[in-house]
């Protein structure tokens, strides 16, 4: 064989190898395995079950209660300075949050405002789960000195003055609060020493009458908040198409970068461990080593939240709850202590996450890039032990995940 022939033969062989290799790599194959498709289905909004009743709130699905609750939600009179309502921090135009690292009402809180959409599905409310229903949650900020700054008798008088008709049509007769010797203008179990002393001076029966009105306010607000939901996103269109193997719709719903981000999200980036289910949260508590913020008091997260909810006067087992003890499984069988609760916080839903900077429980991270960099490096936790391990992903891969997260935007609907 001549030298030339040998060379030609050699290159032909090499060419064949390269072609077959490229064919193997680039040959179209099913985008997802059966197991991956099953995982995608669990994240799809179509997998979200109908909202279960809230046994702790007999007014939860009463449209009149929702209408009344909506009025309360936006009414700034329910505050110490007449300027703070629920909607001050839970701004509808911003997805019912405020875009600030720390919430600002009368003063500044020590945590980030949480979004509301879909929280009716969560057994625990707040970053530390210190409340176990939406109605109990709604009552927390109203008595916080740095949020609404008001108190129970003040609110009872306001209901009496401005909402008697609405209130009585739903909850029955409103007690007579006109005797300000029995029902001071300002009294409640709050930080303010004067209001607190006035509250302690009231008879248990009078306190009970005021608290019942307060509880009903919470149940009305919850009836409204229950209806705040997030709608389908491009991701959901993609999954719906993927389940039917509709390649055309799949390709028009997500770009290849976004699909690669999704692949990382459900795979090597481990995001799905906590951000699972159709709302992209397990509503449980996780220490992910999020840094502490200088100047803020020590935050033990769920460790404190678990103790708080057990003794909360408005929890599922309380006399103000409409639930029977059998309906309070989450509270009765909760993990109340242990190392894993220290600095563990609840993962919020990732739906609409791209428009919800800054991130984490005290707004520690300004951008999604910062968040992903944190998860990629997995630093030591300031207290307790982080559950995450370094991912070792490239900047390009982190970019894919961020691209994917931006496909989770859906319209937030509220009545």
């Amino acid at each position: 064989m001549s030298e030339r022939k040998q060379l030609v033969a050699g290159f032909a062989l090499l060419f064949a190898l390269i072609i077959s290799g490229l064919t193997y790599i680039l040959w179209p194959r099913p985008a997802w395995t059966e197991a991956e498709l099953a995982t995608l289905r669990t994240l799809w909004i179509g997998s979200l079950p109908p909202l279960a009743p809230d046994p702790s709130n007999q007014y939860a699905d009463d449209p009149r209660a929702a209408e009344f609750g909506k009025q309360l939600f936006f009414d700034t009179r329910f505050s110490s300075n007449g300027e703070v309502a629920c909607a001050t921090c839970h701004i509808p135009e911003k997805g019912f949050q405020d875009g600030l690292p720390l919430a600002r009402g009368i003063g500044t809180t020590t945590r980030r405002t949480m979004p509301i959409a879909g929280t009716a599905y969560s057994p625990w409310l707040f970053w530390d789960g210190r409340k176990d229903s939406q109605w109990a949650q709604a009552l927390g900020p109203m008595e916080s000195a740095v949020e609404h700054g008001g108190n129970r008798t003040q609110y009872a008088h306001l209901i009496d003055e401005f909402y008697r008709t609405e209130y009585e049509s739903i909850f029955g007769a409103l007690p007579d609060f006109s005797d300000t010797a029995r029902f001071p203008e300002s009294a409640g179990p709050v930080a303010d020493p004067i209001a607190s002393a006035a509250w302690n001076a009231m008879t248990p029966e009078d306190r009970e009458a005021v608290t019942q009105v307060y509880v009903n306010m919470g149940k009305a607000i919850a009836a409204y908040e229950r209806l705040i939901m997030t709608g389908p996103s491009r991701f959901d269109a993609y999954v719906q198409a993927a389940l039917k193997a509709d390649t055309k719709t799949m390709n028009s719903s997500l770009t290849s970068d976004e699909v690669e981000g999704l692949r990382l999200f459900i795979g090597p980036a481990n995001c799905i461990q906590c951000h699972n289910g159709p709302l992209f949260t397990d509503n449980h508590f996780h220490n992910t080593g999020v840094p502490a913020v200088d100047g803020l008091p020590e935050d033990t997260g769920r460790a404190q939240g678990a103790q708080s909810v057990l003794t909360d006067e408005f929890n599922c087992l309380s006399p103000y709850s409409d639930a029977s003890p059998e309906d309070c499984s989450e509270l009765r069988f909760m993990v109340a202590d242990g190392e894993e609760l220290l600095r563990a916080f609840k993962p919020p839903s990732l739906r609409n996450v791209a428009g919800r900077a800054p991130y984490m429980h005290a707004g520690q991270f300004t951008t999604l890039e910062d968040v992903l960099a944190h998860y990629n490096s997995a630093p030591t936790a300031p207290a307790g032990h982080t559950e995450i391990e370094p991912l070792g992903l490239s900047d390009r891969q982190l970019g894919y995940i961020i691209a994917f997260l931006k496909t989770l935007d859906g319209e937030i609907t509220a009545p």
Partner: protein
Amino acid sequence: MKTQTAKTILIVALTAIITVIVFILLMPIIGPRFMHPLMSGYMPMHANSVPPASLDISTVRTTDNGLYRVSFTSELNPLAINQIHTWTLHIETADGQPVENAEITVDGGMPQHGHGLPTRPQVTQNLGNGDYVVEGMKFQMGGWWEVKFSITSGGKTDTVTFNLILEG
């Protein structure tokens, strides 16, 4: 002739090596999305969520020392993540007699993740005939879960572990 063959082989080998190197260098540009999952260094699913192939996921098991035969049924069927629910446990002796008045404790977790159950389930009712109600069962992520029961009856304790694979 021999040197010619060697030369050809050398050229072909070098070209092949260069091609591979160029391909590797181009990877950051073409991105991982065109690659076969095996080539990008990971399996399609996260390795931690892949349970051992030989895992016994039967819902009827004999306790570790052979004292009892234990089975469970879940009110949530199929099992799913993030929903608190109730199990019914049935316990009988090795020769099929129901074990009444057993003391039972519940534990569990994800062996591949090193964490326990998200709740503290408890046996809340003895239904008789070897049946017991376990309330507070919950799993908060997909993958391999273990649920362990410690059963004491007549002063004799034995343990049993059920393996579950959850979607999610």
